[in-house]
């Protein structure tokens, strides 16, 4: 479990890298920004969702349960959730 606050840029970077890997593209349709959500970029869809979910768990050393998935449909929700469980 991490203890320091996670920045939104860190979350965007992990999500962006995961989407690039799973989509096997050199660049995403649009960058992953602090406002990004499933569908924007297009590569963030139901098939890549689980890759993003697992990448976040690994990158930040958090143990996620299936019930937590609801917080992983947008960067703002994800960022808020990660910092909430870190407290």
């Amino acid at each position: 479990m991490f203890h320091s606050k996670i920045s939104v840029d860190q979350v965007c970077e992990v999500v962006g890298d995961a989407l690039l890997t799973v989509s096997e593209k050199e660049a995403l349709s649009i960058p992953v920004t602090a406002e990004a959500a499933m569908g924007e970029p297009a590569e963030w869809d139901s098939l890549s969702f689980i890759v993003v979910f697992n990448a976040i768990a690994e990158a930040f050393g958090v143990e996620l349960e299936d019930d937590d998935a609801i917080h992983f449909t947008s960067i703002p929700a994800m960022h808020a959730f990660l910092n909430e469980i870190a407290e």
Partner: protein
Amino acid sequence: MAFHFIASTGRTATTYIAAALNALPGVVACHEGYAGSDKDAEPLLPLINLENARAYQLPSSAEATVAEKRSPEIIADALAQSGAETLIDIAYYNPMFASAMLAAHPQAKMIGIIRDCESFVRSSTTLDGEDPMPVGWADPAKPLTRREEFIALGRIKPRRKTDDKAAWDGWSAIQRNIWLWRETNLRLIEAQSTFPERVLILPFERLKQDPQHFWDAIASHLDLPEISEKAHHGKGKFTNTKAFGYQIEAAAAWSADERQLLHESVEQVEEKLAHVS
């Protein structure tokens, strides 16, 4: 302008029903958000998946999801976009939002379709291979594709700190799908108990045994034009479209624990159903 919805566990010919209703004049019927089940087009209604599991875990969240994704404004926009006078939303996730949707849409009516438990479990349980319509829980040992994994995240499972949650990891896919059947159908019965005049529950088996009676009941409850079974016969997908068919035997071949859970769950649902009917 009218909005109604149909709710069930899934594996109740909802794709076929949506296609038949969508063919009626002045009606647009969505199957899981897509008008007429056309998954190649943009969805007419916002998609719901993960919110389904959350609504079971945290029933109070259903109101927020309805406000965000099935509000009167969203329904009005969808009706305007489609040019129809009546919108019917048909989905496996509607049971978890039934009461919240009926409360948010005071003129809306609901139809719940309940399938025989044993046949639902046989139809929804996958032991191997990718399930193209993963309504139910797969064998715990079966590797899931990303699509199956995502859909599973939105499927209801027992609440934390309950006896069912404690038993869950040791349950077979058959037991998990009996539980899924019970909990989903209890939500339909709960909605009927709360809104008795606005909720009609139909047995799925009637669609096979007496199809015109099934369609007449839908048309009457939702104030729709006559639906002719003959007009739709053969046009829809009222068949088990899983390429590999059923992967589990009939209940007589299930374990004693599975048969006991089946018996208890059917009894519980039938008792509640008899109480509200």
